[in-house]
């Protein structure tokens, strides 16, 4: 376990800001204590400082996870967000998409979102902007990337993809083994 290097921090925050923008600082400056990001076995974990200190007691081999896993660095040095980060992306997300209940299931099975399944979308969403996907009852379902801007969505064909799938909570079951 170690703090992120400058380069890692840059990559990581860049990725994160894609979804929550400047709200990143809300993740770090929290009123209920000091929170931090830590690097452990290619993964980035987010937790309270006290928890982190306690977790550092355990040996590298024995420590599996602590706090919340945000994602992992690939071998090529890119950062990939995991669905486990959804709990922290959802409240701060700047751009959101709501799915019709009929499209929920297909999204949870790992498919992209069609125009026909789109319930609502935040105004002024740019193309290729990271968005958090909600169900109509405001349960966060995952996140992805807008394939079309809001304006384009209006005019597009019902079978056109509007959101590229990146992560969804169905992965808790489908990819439990590779989650971390």
């Amino acid at each position, binding site marked *: 376990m170690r703090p992120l290097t400058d380069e890692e921090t840059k990559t990581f925050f860049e990725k994160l800001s894609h979804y929550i923008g400047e709200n990143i600082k809300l993740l770090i400056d*929290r*009123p*209920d*204590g000091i929170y931090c990001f830590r690097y452990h076995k290619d993964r980035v974990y987010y*937790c*309270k400082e*006290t*928890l982190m200190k*306690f*977790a550092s*007691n*355990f*040996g590298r*081999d*024995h*420590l*599996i*996870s*602590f*706090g*919340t*896993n945000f994602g992992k660095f690939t071998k090529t040095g890119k950062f990939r967000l995991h669905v*486990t980060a959804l*709990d*922290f992306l959802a*409240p701060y997300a700047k751009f959101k998409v709501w799915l019709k209940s009929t499209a*929920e299931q297909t999204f*949870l099975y790992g498919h992209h979102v069609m125009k026909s399944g789109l319930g609502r979308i935040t105004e002024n969403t740019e193309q290729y902007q990271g968005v958090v996907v909600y*169900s109509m*009852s*405001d*349960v*966060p*379902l995952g996140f992805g990337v807008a394939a079309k801007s809001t304006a384009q969505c209006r005019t597009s064909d019902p079978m056109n993809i509007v959101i590229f799938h990146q992560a969804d*909570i*169905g992965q*808790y*079951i489908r990819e*439990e*083994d590779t*989650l*971390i």
Partner: protein
Amino acid sequence: MGRKLNVGKKAVEVGFNPDTKSKRVRASSRKNKRQQEPVLPKFLAGDEAETKKLSSHQKKRKKLALLKEAEKKAQKLAKQSNKKAKLVERQNQNKVNGRAKSKSKAEAEEEINGSASESDESFVEDDVNFKDDNADWLTPKKTGVQLHGSEDDEEMSEDEEMSGDEEGDDVSDAESEEEDEANLLPIERKAKKLRQKEVVDKQLAQEELDMNIKQTEVYKLPSGQDISRDSNLAPDLELLKQRIRDIMQVLGDFSSRRDSGTSRQSYVSQLRTDLCTYYGYNEFLMEKLMEIFPQDIIEFLEANEIDRPVTIRTNTLKTRRRDLAQALINRGMNLDPIGKWSKVGLVVYDTQVPIGATPEYLGGHYMIQGGSSFLPVMALAPQQHEKNLDMAAAPGGKTSYMAALMQNTGTIVANDKNKARLKAVIGNLHRMGITNSVITNSDGKDIIKYANNFDRVLLDAPCSGTGVISKDQSVKANKDEVDIAKCSQLQRQLLLTAIDCCDAKSSSGGYIVYSTCSILVIDYVLKKRAVKLVSTGLDFGKEGFSQYKYHRFHPSLKHTRRFYPHTHNLDGFFVAKLKKLANMEGAADERVTDEPMAAEPMETVDSEPVTETTKATTKAARKSKPSKSSPKKKQWNRLKKIEKMGRQKKLQSQETSGSTGNTSRKRKHLK
């Protein structure tokens, strides 16, 4: 009497074709429903014969009377024969061939004729009696009815009486019998005699039956030859079940139902082998189970054949039970609260969607979790801002419940020895939105190297699995004494480690909850540590054993709780809550001089293979204990409290400032 019938009748018959007879019967039943009198059921016809005999006998005696009424009779006959003739004519018109059936038809015909003839006779009798003996009680109106009504009715009523006798009419009859004797018709007298006879017969039959029952109650065990012969064949389950039932009955009241010369042991051993075959357990396990459930072994085994209901636990970090229930009902689930004892549990009766794949499940709103695994956490009652340990966490159900109770504050260490199973823990804890957990993979016994001074420790020990037989049937066959012993050994070590990890000086805690899904003996003497059993806070469940066979355990074992599949419809479960009293090693009674508490003798958690020495210590402990213990305990606790007051206050002030901010933040998270 039917044979002696009237000529008129015969004359009518002569006109019949055998072919048309069949039609006639049918016609009489269909078309002329109001004239149904002539068609009599066979059994009635049989009765007739009897009554006819009687009446013939009577005839002799009352010839005179008969003669007197000859005229009336003749008139009646004429009327009836007219009716019949009409009937016949009508039927003759319907020409149908039914030769095959002609025989039966002929019989029917006979009956009809018989009834007709009988009617004649009975009319005679009736009339006679009305005029002579029964004039006083038979009203004229009634006689009229009888005259018009066919003898069929009369016979029916008589027949009813006959059958009614068997049930209980005879009692009332017997009372009035003597009084009425004089007034009765001869037929009735005969009937009464018959009734009496029947009653006697019935009594005799009942006695015989009773005797038979008594004889079968002494159940004889099959001989050795029978058994050896049977063992080659596939077991006949029906037979086995019957035998099990029989033996259980014998054992239920052994002294009176036993087969003299057969010992109780041979009954029991036969029962054991039968149960093993029937339910598919091995001998060792069955023996142990039978020792634990001497009375309700069958219920226990049956309960193991049935699946427990699916239960889910609401994740209070993300939703409320009412909201969750509403959402799930909308998805087509049929559910109910689990019971009064839990505010977060729901029982799912049936569902149209997979429980483990609804968006609510994936969103971490609930966890599929056996009702029994709520209990240890409820007993542990983790508080906010504590540092707690779950020593055997996988798959994370209890850990997430602990975190929910702690409202994501403090620290939870979720440890498991099996790395593969930890993946489920990771998935579940993240899904449930738990942020205060540290997931580690180490042997439970080593965990003290990395961390100690936990406030509360939950040890859900790896076990023999005898409590969850309904989930995994293989337990039945593949657990033997060695497995159980290994299990016990491991559990003992883990429990000792758990106690060592716990901090006795903790302000809020110092508790260890030890639970396991085994119902077999698992809890061991903890004479090496200063702990005592405290109430689990669960107000249901069975108390733990304070005695088992020849073992006598510490009386405080009554604080532990046992849950059985057949009585509580939960998985078999054992929960014990321990309070750590001091951080030093060694049993409490060894430190008598050190601390006042030490007067409270060592507490034992235990069941089975207790060594002689431990037995001795527990006995000694019991002797010394009763009166002193409780006041001393309190005193010591008070001292402890005062000692920590200062530290606690500091802690609290810190925590409150932290916690308020935390909750507000959390709400924001959850929107």
